[in-house]
């Protein structure tokens, strides 16, 4: 654990910041697209240390934030079925659906359990053969391999009461879509955990096609500062490429085993992202081979189409077009205790991080 101290050394932080300042005085906008980075940047007070010409934007990197209300509504509908246990990562239970949250359903008696690993969900399925266990699979390439492994396990064990409700997404389509929408992004602080799985090549198109650099960053404060330095250096030298700052965890080829298990279980589909709409081939659905574990195929529920909250600008925030403080609901109606938009729910949401650390 010693690395924690070394990676938050105040003297080194000062040196890197001096170098960043000396590289350019031009306006530079850098976007992170990983909730862990959103959180770390606010937690360590990094914006307060950077020169004023370096602007950090939070992109659609928090899985809870980009998930649709319809997904939540459907999860709620599942929780109301008889003999169902919903298993989920914690943040999701507070996300507002159109008329309720999973947390509210839990208080009314729905069996909703917070777990930290899909393995816990499998354990519940083994223990309760009389119940149907639905795991709410959300997240990017980081959590998708675990969900896939869960499905393969369930298949090998011939569990017939375990289902995945997938909202898994992949990151590159969103990164491309943001640039194509015309948002000013001079560089991407590319996600660290996602890249441990995928490797660095998934970002190759971004510099090649759009002339925007990507630096895969770790999560300690010096990691992030060094990544900012590398991006600003690319801009200064007009030499855009994919670099790995987070070398102690990320290999160019990534984690082959995890990639294989994702391929084994999932297939790409078009998916809806808050703020970005439907992006082609950006979501992961369970393929034919494992369709007996697909909650959407096996368990039928009806959910009405809905109207998104008026006044909430989560969509624009996720695109880096606006900051949380520009939202009329921020701090007034929308707070971490009473979130209206999804960006206020998770620790990793831009509004939540901004509210907690930077008001």
């Amino acid at each position, binding site marked *: *654990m010693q690395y*924690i*101290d070394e990676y*938050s*050394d*105040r003297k080194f*932080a*000062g040196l890197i910041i001096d170098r960043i300042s000396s590289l350019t005085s031009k306006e530079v906008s850098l976007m992170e697209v990983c909730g862990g980075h959103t959180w770390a940047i*606010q*937690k*360590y*007070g*990094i*914006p*307060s*240390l950077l020169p004023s010409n370096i602007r950090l934007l939070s992109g659609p990197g928090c899985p809870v934030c980009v998930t649709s209300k319809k997904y939540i509504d459907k999860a709620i509908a599942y929780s109301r079925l008889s003999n169902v246990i919903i298993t989920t990562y914690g943040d999701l239970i*507070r996300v507002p659906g159109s008329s309720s949250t999973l947390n509210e359903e839990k208080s009314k008696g729905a069996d909703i359990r917070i777990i*930290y*690993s899909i393995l*816990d969900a499998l354990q519940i399925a083994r223990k309760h053969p009389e119940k149907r266990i639905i795991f709410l699979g959300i997240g990017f390439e980081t959590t998708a391999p675990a969900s896939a492994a869960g499905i393969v396990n369930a298949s090998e064990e011939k569990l017939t009461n375990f289902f995945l409700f997938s909202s898994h997404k992949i990151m590159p389509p969103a990164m491309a879509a943001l640039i194509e929408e015309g948002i000013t992004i001079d560089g991407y602080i590319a996600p660290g955990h996602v890249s441990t799985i995928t490797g660095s090549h998934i970002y190759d198109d971004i510099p090649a096609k759009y002339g925007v650099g990507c630096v895969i960053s770790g999560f300690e*404060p*010096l990691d992030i*500062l060094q990544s900012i330095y590398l991006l600003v250096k690319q801009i200064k030298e007009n030499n855009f490429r994919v670099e790995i700052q987070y070398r102690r965890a990320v290999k160019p080829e990534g984690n082959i085993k995890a990639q294989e298990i994702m391929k084994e279980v999932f297939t790409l589909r078009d998916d809806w992202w808050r703020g970005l709409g439907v992006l082609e081939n950006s979501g992961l659905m369970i393929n034919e081979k494992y369709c007996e574990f697909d909650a959407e195929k096996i368990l039928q529920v009806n959910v009405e189409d809905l109207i998104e909250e008026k006044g909430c600008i989560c969509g624009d925030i996720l695109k880096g077009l606006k900051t949380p403080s520009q939202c009329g609901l921020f701090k007034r109606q929308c*707070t*971490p*205790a009473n979130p209206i938009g999804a960006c206020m729910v998770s*620790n990793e949401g831009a509004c939540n991080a901004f*509210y*907690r*650390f*930077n*008001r």
Partner: protein
Amino acid sequence: MGKNILLEHGSGGIISLNLIKEMFIKYFDNPVLNKQTDSALLSTESDLISFTTDSYVVDPLFFPGGNIGKLAVCGTVNDLAVSGAIPKFISVSFILEEGFSFEELELIVSSIADEAKKSEVMIVTGDTKVVNRGKCDKLFINTSGIGILNKKYKHISTCDNIIPGDKIIINGTIGDHGMAVMAARDFAGFKTDIKTDCASLNFLIRDVLDANCNVKFIRDATRGGIATILCELTEKMNIGIEIEESAVPVREAVRGMCELLGFDPFYVANEGKVIMITSAEDAERVVEVMRQNEYGADCSVIGEITGNHIGKTILRTTIGGRRIIEMLSGEQLPRIC
């Protein structure tokens, strides 16, 4: 007495009386309780008393370094002590679930007795109820306490004397209790050596007050962690607070577990930590006195009161950045006390 608690143990009849005699009187043994009057008759040498109450529902009941019984005594003793009072008497009430094991009850009761003895409080009254299986989770405890308060310490609860420049001191590492309970839940197959910091701090606080240090405020940092106390203070007192992150002691294992699970140790519960605010001149002396006590060995000056950014607690982070510490919203960890 049988192996498990039956509904009859709360009926008020013979079986109840046996439980009282063979369990509670046996362990809590003292002249006031032994009289078994409906109300305990107490006399104190002071006309100013502190009175507090708290309920304990921690899950699991046993965790590394303690159990719900020890927690129930320490919690109430500390609530009294932080007002400047000397804790004297406590009540202990149990709500038991039908079928709860006598063996575990006895372990808990003996911990209560041990901790009461250690912190020199007398258990003078109590109650037992038994509810049907499934109507409560094994065992809940309520304790109330009375302490005597010297008039010269009245300002400690109201914190009226705080001024810019005053120093903020903590008696040791933060986050141990919350993470110990979390690890004891055996989730995600966690193995750690983190123990609860659960302890009665009345003698530590007494040492500091007896040394005539200018102490302006004391609060135990339980649920919501130290962040919650600091935010409450800034909101209530019209002051600003600055905390130096690197001065706040956190055990490596606690920090690692928090990192892994996405918790912030500033919000994680403690059961043996106090925040003290003292005059700038006396801060070093408070630290010296605390260090003599086993519960103050790792104490540290973590920050100060300022006249700037009124209503806000600002943290100077390890790398020198600045950010706000905000009140906890939602539940960080359920049922940790």
